[in-house]
């Protein structure tokens, strides 16, 4: 092996060996080859007045500083109903975190901080969630059982989330395939994290306890684009009921991805559907890369043979100039070097764009050992932070061979102990393949380690609440008031010739029923109306701030007015911005503000001869088309709301051409 090992070159080379390609260049066959498989857990907040298990208001949010009291808790793993401890639970216990909750008296009561048992489930939320379950073609349960799902990260003060299954075995219809749904549950939302520094994590409790549903698809989505389509579909479906919240954080996706030979990895809390393709693409290649690393290491060792060495470093013996290492003296922190036998080329092995294998370790140290970043130096860093001399000295202490790699870590004594265990554990995991874990998504399409993936072993019946029977009569009443299925809406939009670029806007804003009602009641042309909403109205929404008095009924009322006054609907694009900004204004005044006057076709075309004369005076060309265009421009404003512009054009053309 060459003594001049170039980590950058190694990174690029391993990236090539893994076969990483840009998503735009990746074909469905490529995904099939590496066994891309994924499923979704779509979280959607319900629009209710109160929270799910107490009577605090839902949807009222506070700034980080706006709180009245604090509560501190620590979480301990508790056994599941079937008598086991959950892996994540034990890991989280290792982290020894102080969890600090900020409580604002307006939005949290003693229930949220687990000092009062739950009140009866919010019937409004249950009804909303059941309606959505029915739309998802799920088999509705006969009796709802509240279950506790352990979360030891502190995001819920009880240490568990109260959740219940409403239906199982449903499906949705995408453009090219039917996708099965495993289940839909109703649950309470968690706290919002304020900060996470070393052994302290802060949460605020305003969002905690808000009603939420989780729709889980089967792992049947075979490309990143299909995954996105399913996410979009479920979002449209949820919104088609008009019973869900919209806006920042109201809908979040967990994306489960694996490759052939890989493991289920969950990318948590993806806030935007448009991020899904890139995230899942990078994740499947990350797993592919980890399997490549396994192959490399297996060529060198058996799992049982591999053993790392570590020893404490004395600052005085080295010439470190790196500030975090120098600070260790003052903080009384330990510095420990670790020798990783046969791991040369592994640390700088490609995992994701901009990340190498050493980053996987660093992220685990941050989360599990609570050592803040930067928390790791190693022998394959692109920049030389530790001098070659110092590294040589460390290597000689271990009697390290040329094929070994080294880490330097530092931190409080207890944390360093955990850190050493974590590093050993993670390297042993290489031999097993891809660890099950949850990962946090970053805006650039890559992910970082979040937690070990919890199993089914963290479920426990909620002994604080009784089962809720769902009678056939109740289900039938809900069934009677459902919107049509979303795929039917999509095919109607196509039938109407609604511009393809506006489908997302119409479905996600749930404008479909508005458009449908306008078309059916007033017999307007579907393409015209849906285009007005898909283009003009979308532009207005992007341009102006919505007023609280505004609602969709007013949109329908506007078209009712146009119809009643026998105006032409082409005036709608001019009235809509006024309505949006001044929702309380009466429609007649809006017309006045447009200086609108009722005119017949005869009245409108009367001045054509005069205009032809006028054009002759100012004309720059002799093309009669220019004349027609100019005249149309002069009459356009008067014609709007009175006649079809194309009819006017015909009349103009007749006279000019």
């Amino acid at each position: 092996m060459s003594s001049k090992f170039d980590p950058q070159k190694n990174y690029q080379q391993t990236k090539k060996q893994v076969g990483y390609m840009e998503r735009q260049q990746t074909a469905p066959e490529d995904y099939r080859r590496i066994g891309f498989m994924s499923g979704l857990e779509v979280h959607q907040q319900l629009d209710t007045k109160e929270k799910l298990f107490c009577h605090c208001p839902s949807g009222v949010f506070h700034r980080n500083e706006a709180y009245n009291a604090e509560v501190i808790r620590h979480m301990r793993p508790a056994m599941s109903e079937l008598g086991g401890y959950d892996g994540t639970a034990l890991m989280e216990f290792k982290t020894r975190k102080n969890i600090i909750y900020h409580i604002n008296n307006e939005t949290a009561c003693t229930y949220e901080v687990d000092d009062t048992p739950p009140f009866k489930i919010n019937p409004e939320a249950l009804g909303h969630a059941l309606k959505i379950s029915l739309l998802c073609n799920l088999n509705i349960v006969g009796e709802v059982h509240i279950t506790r799902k352990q979360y030891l990260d502190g995001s819920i003060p009880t240490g568990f989330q109260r959740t219940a299954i409403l239906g199982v075995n449903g499906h949705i219809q995408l453009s090219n395939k039917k996708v099965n749904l495993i289940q839909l549950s109703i649950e309470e939302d968690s706290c919002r994290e304020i900060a996470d520094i070393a052994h302290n994590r802060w949460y605020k409790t305003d969002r905690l306890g808000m009603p939420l549903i989780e729709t889980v698809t089967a792992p049947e989505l075979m490309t990143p684009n299909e995954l996105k389509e399913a996410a979009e579909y479920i979002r449209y479906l949820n919104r088609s009921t008009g019973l869900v919240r919209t806006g920042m954080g109201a809908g979040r996706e967990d994306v489960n991805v694996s490759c052939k030979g890989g493991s289920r990895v969950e990318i948590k809390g993806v806030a935007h559907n448009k991020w899904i393709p890139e995230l899942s693409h990078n994740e499947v290649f990350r797993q592919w890369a980890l399997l490549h690393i396994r192959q490399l290491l297996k060529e060198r060792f058996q799992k049982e043979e591999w053993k790392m060495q570590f020893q404490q470093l004395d600052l005085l013996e080295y010439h470190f100039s790196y500030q975090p290492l120098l600070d260790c003296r003052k903080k009384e922190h330990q510095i420990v070097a670790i020798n990783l036998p046969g791991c040369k080329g592994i640390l700088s092995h490609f995992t994701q764009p901009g990340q190498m294998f050493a980053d996987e370790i660093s992220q685990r140290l941050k989360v599990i050992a609570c050592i803040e970043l930067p928390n790791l130096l190693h022998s394959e860093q692109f920049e030389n932070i530790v001098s070659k001399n110092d590294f040589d000295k460390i290597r000689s202490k271990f009697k390290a061979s040329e094929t070994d790699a080294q880490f330097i870590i530092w931190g409080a004594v207890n944390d360093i102990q955990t850190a050493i265990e974590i590093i050993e554990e993670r390297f042993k995991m290489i031999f097993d393949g891809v660890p099950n874990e949850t990962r946090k998504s970053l805006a650039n399409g890559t992910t970082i380690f979040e937690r070990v993936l919890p199993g089914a072993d963290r479920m426990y019946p909620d002994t604080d609440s009784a089962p809720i029977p769902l009678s056939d009569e109740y289900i039938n009443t809900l069934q009677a008031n459902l919107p049509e299925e979303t795929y039917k809406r999509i095919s109607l939009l196509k039938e109407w010739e609604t511009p393809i670029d506006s489908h997302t806007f119409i479905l996600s804003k749930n404008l479909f029923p508005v458009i449908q009602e306008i078309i059916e009641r007033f017999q307007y042309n579907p393409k015209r109306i849906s285009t007005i909403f898909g283009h003009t109205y979308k532009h207005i929404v992007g341009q102006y701030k919505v007023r609280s008095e505004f609602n969709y009924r007013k949109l329908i009322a506007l078209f009712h007015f146009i119809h009643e006054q026998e105006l032409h609907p082409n005036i709608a694009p001019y009235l809509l911005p006024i309505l949006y900004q001044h929702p309380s204004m009466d429609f007649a005044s809006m017309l006045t503000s447009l200086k609108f006057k009722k005119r017949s076709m005869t009245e409108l075309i009367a001045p054509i001869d005069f205009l032809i004369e006028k054009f002759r005076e100012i004309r720059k060309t002799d093309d009669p088309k220019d004349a027609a265009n100019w005249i149309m421009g002069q009459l356009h404003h008067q014609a709007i709301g009175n006649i079809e512009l194309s009819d006017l054009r015909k009349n103009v053309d007749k006279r000019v051409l």
Partner: protein
Amino acid sequence: MKDLFQGYKGKALETLKKYNVRVWGKANIKTTRGTFNGTILPRSENDDDQHIVLKIETGYNIGINVGTISDMKETGYKKANYKVPEKEFPYTEGQPQVKLFGTGGTIASRLDYRTGAVIPAFSPGELYGSVPELADICNLSTEKVFAVFSENMGPKQYIALAIAIGKEIENGIDGIIIAHGTDTLHHTAAALTYMVQNPPVPIVLVGSQRSSDRPSSDAALNLMHSAVAAGHGDIAEVMVCMFGPTSDEYGFLHRGTRVRKMHSSYRSTFRTLGDTPIATVTQKGVKPIKKVYNHRRKDRNVKILPYFEEKVSILYYYPNMQPDIIDALVACGYKGIIIAGTGLGHVNKPVYPALKKAIEKGVHIFMTVQTLWGYVNMFVYDTGRDLMALGVVPLDNMLPEAAYIKLGWTLGQTNDRQKVIEIMQTSINDEITKREPYNGYLVYQGGVPEVEQFVKNFRK
């Protein structure tokens, strides 16, 4: 046979039998609402007979209405084994020897399928299995004296506990912990104060407001605090050890006679009334608040007085109380009555004749206050003087529950009116205090800016 269908009855039981599917059997169920797969779970006896409980593959439980079932097949069987690893407690040379008595209650409970609620079932050994940190504090031996819910604790249990404690002290134990449900923890604490007098070592009652099957349970921390207090603390009294604040921070040690459960669900529910707690406790040690307390001793001179008369009652006075209530108690053979009176210790005139009759029949009647804080004072108003003239005896600032337990204990020893009054009015361990310190009554109200400031900055 019945065990195959745990908790099922009526229609649901019939259905299970009809299709030959057992509890813990894996089943495929066809219904008018579609097909469901999962493991049949036991059903709580108090729930209806219209549903079958199923644990589906994702770990969630659901209920299936038996009326909708058209077919059902058992495809497998797997019984859950709910058991905490029971480990023998490791012995460490030089650590204090502590005995833990298990009595049941939330601190040691687990799921019960029969009732669907939590039942007291962890053995103290299992308890160690889930709180291994205890081994760093003391050498712990455990004994399950009984397994009952807090509300089922009574005179029999007080007496058994007092005798067991006496034996342990005689055998040279360094401290005693009693794991107990919280609802009547203060009753037991008072009873043991009277029954176990002059103990040379700490006797610490502990419970939890959140069962140990919850990740945020206060059980583990309370246990650790009580082990510190029992093994290392210098306060040799009967005490209650529970959360100080609602946060996981420190515990209080409350004197067994001055403590009361003050909130139905808060973790920091136990408060010392009319005084301060004796001490705070953390994993690092006990920090006394009160300067005067009984110190730990080397001798074994404890006095065990295990007596109790069960025919004692507590009467919570309300306006318009009818005299026949008192007549009824007398007719039923009650020998002692504690009245929790209004204000300074009052009841209305119409019950006077009934009280007079009762006292003449030899019933011992004492007065406490339902305000909980403050002293009985029957001299301030005529009504009070009239009551005393009838023979109702004031008990100063003794808490009604502490007084009730004390009267039962006293009447277990004597029925002599003068002796009973003398015992009742002679404080054993601060059930009556001579003075109420200014900081003995602190019920602050929210909304006041200064209080809000305090809550935000200090009351975690």
